[in-house]
């Protein structure tokens, strides 16, 4: 366990020097972390055995909320935007979830997909409100009253995203160890027993769904202010599929998994697009196959396994 934390601390430190050591990676990583929040949300539902193929709608909801607030109310503080977008998306998530968490398996997956497609259509068609398929431009937010250049803001945003990732990961680890966190997993393994313990699976799932939507919303808001432009495409179903893929690839065994998956995918994407533009889907597909066959616990499984090995080697009791 200690090794694992040391590993995470080292990875975190490496990320923290990116704006200086590899400036080209800064934007890529900001987006990776933004999508990572959404993927963590998807992973939370996966723990309950539910696949949402619609979570990009909450990512988009967070992004559009941030855009609306800046454009309509004139409030442009980064922190206000992030908090407000997260809360608004949580409310939307609770409303959608109240209806969807009755369903299981393929019905849950398809209903999420359906609702997200309606959401996508609304974003595309309601030109007067959403800017239609052109989307909305998002001006550079202020930070605690300071007006920054775009470049300066991007650096601040990167560190804010990094800090939020650490905070969410910390809270997430706690959550998964809590009674409620266990109850989420219990829905997957034995919902009947959970109900017979007097626990409402519906309520547990609604809370999980709301949290997952809020996380996606936070990610969307970060993406909106980072990219400076929101589009209906944020909500497109392929984006939802991408989030599921990210969560599975990263691994749902721990909160770090989806972030690892997201950072991995964004970097592979960037490199692949640069090196062999047409091969992106091929590279993605092949990577996923490799992970599914060789790393059923996802990339996170690889990390925990190697940490395990190192620690047992140190104790001189090589288990494997």
């Amino acid at each position, binding site marked *: 366990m200690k090794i694992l934390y040391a590993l995470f601390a080292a990875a975190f430190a490496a990320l923290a020097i990116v704006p200086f050591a590899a400036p080209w990676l800064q934007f890529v990583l900001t987006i990776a972390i933004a999508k990572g929040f959404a993927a963590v949300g998807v992973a939370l539902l996966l723990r309950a055995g539910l696949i949402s193929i619609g979570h990009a709608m909450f990512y988009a909801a967070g992004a559009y909320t941030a855009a609306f607030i800046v454009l309509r109310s004139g409030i442009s503080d980064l922190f206000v935007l992030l908090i407000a977008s997260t809360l608004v998306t949580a409310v939307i998530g609770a409303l959608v979830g109240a209806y969807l968490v009755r369903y299981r398996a393929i019905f849950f997956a398809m209903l999420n997909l359906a609702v997200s497609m309606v959401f996508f259509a609304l974003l595309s068609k309601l030109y007067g409100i959403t800017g239609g398929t052109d989307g909305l431009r998002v001006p550079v937010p202020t930070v605690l009253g300071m007006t920054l250049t775009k470049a300066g803001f991007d650096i601040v945003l990167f560190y804010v995203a990094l800090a939020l990732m650490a905070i969410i990961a910390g809270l997430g680890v*706690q959550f998964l160890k*809590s*009674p409620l*966190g266990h109850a989420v997993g219990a829905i997957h393994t*034995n919902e009947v027993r959970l109900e*017979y*313990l*007097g626990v409402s699976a519906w309520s547990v799932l609604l*809370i999980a769904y709301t949290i997952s939507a809020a996380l996606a919303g936070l990610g969307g808001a970060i993406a909106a202010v980072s990219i400076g432009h929101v589009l209906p495409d944020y909500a497109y179903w392929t984006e939802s599929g991408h989030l599921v893929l990210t969560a599975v690839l990263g691994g749902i065994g721990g909160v770090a998994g989806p972030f690892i998956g997201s950072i991995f995918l964004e970097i592979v994407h960037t490199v692949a697009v640069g090196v062999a533009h047409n091969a992106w889907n091929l590279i993605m597909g092949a990577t996923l196959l490799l992970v599914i066959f060789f790393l059923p616990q996802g990339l996170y499984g690889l990390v925990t396994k190697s940490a395990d090995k190192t620690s047992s080697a140190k104790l001189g009791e090589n288990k494997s």
Partner: protein
Amino acid sequence: MSQPLLKAESLTIAFAGIKAADNVSLEIEKGEFLAIIGPNGSGKTTFLNLCTGYIRPVSGEVYLEGEPITGWAPRRIARQGIARAFQIPQLFTDQTVRSNLLLAIASRQGVWDGLKPLARRRYQEEADELLELLGLSAHADAIAGTLPEGLRKLADITLALALKPRLLLLDEPTSGVSALERFSIMETLMNAMRTKGLTALFVEHDMEIVERYADRVLVWNSGSILAQGKPAEVLQDPRVVETVVGVA
């Protein structure tokens, strides 16, 4: 005036035209250890399903200490104090026995606490006590799904006990276990029941066990009660011998 802990009144349910409960009425007194026997498919498990809200009767009522609970959801009935162990153990199979039990203990307060660990001291102590009582201490850290059937049954019962129920329903606690193990499971169970001062109903196939442990026995046949009374008498009843004892 004491009213029965559980009262079932004219419960009726049919599946595909076959009556699994046919106008069933019975009462369970506080402190009683009541056995249900009967051939396979006679509706014993169905009766437990009706009492715990898993299925709704077509007609009839269930009362828990006078309060009608018919048609309530299982979680609500569980919170009112009826706990159940299943014919096929219902565990969180990917978790340790201890972790299963901790969740059961935590669920008495609802599981809404999202920030404090499940494995907190107070729950751990209670879990240890229960594991000890049910003789599961040695298996506390085993993954529940990997245990042999007898131990899974005990673990399932432990989850029910962790709810501190007013009434415990046990569906064939000793089935799938060698004849030798049966008595040791029952001894463990009876010890736990006495320690907790519980009222329980248990479905059982083994007549020796019924005779030795039950205060009263109900004989089920085709969805209705064929006979009831003290085990020693009921098990001699020729009709009972014909439908149940001979078959089992």
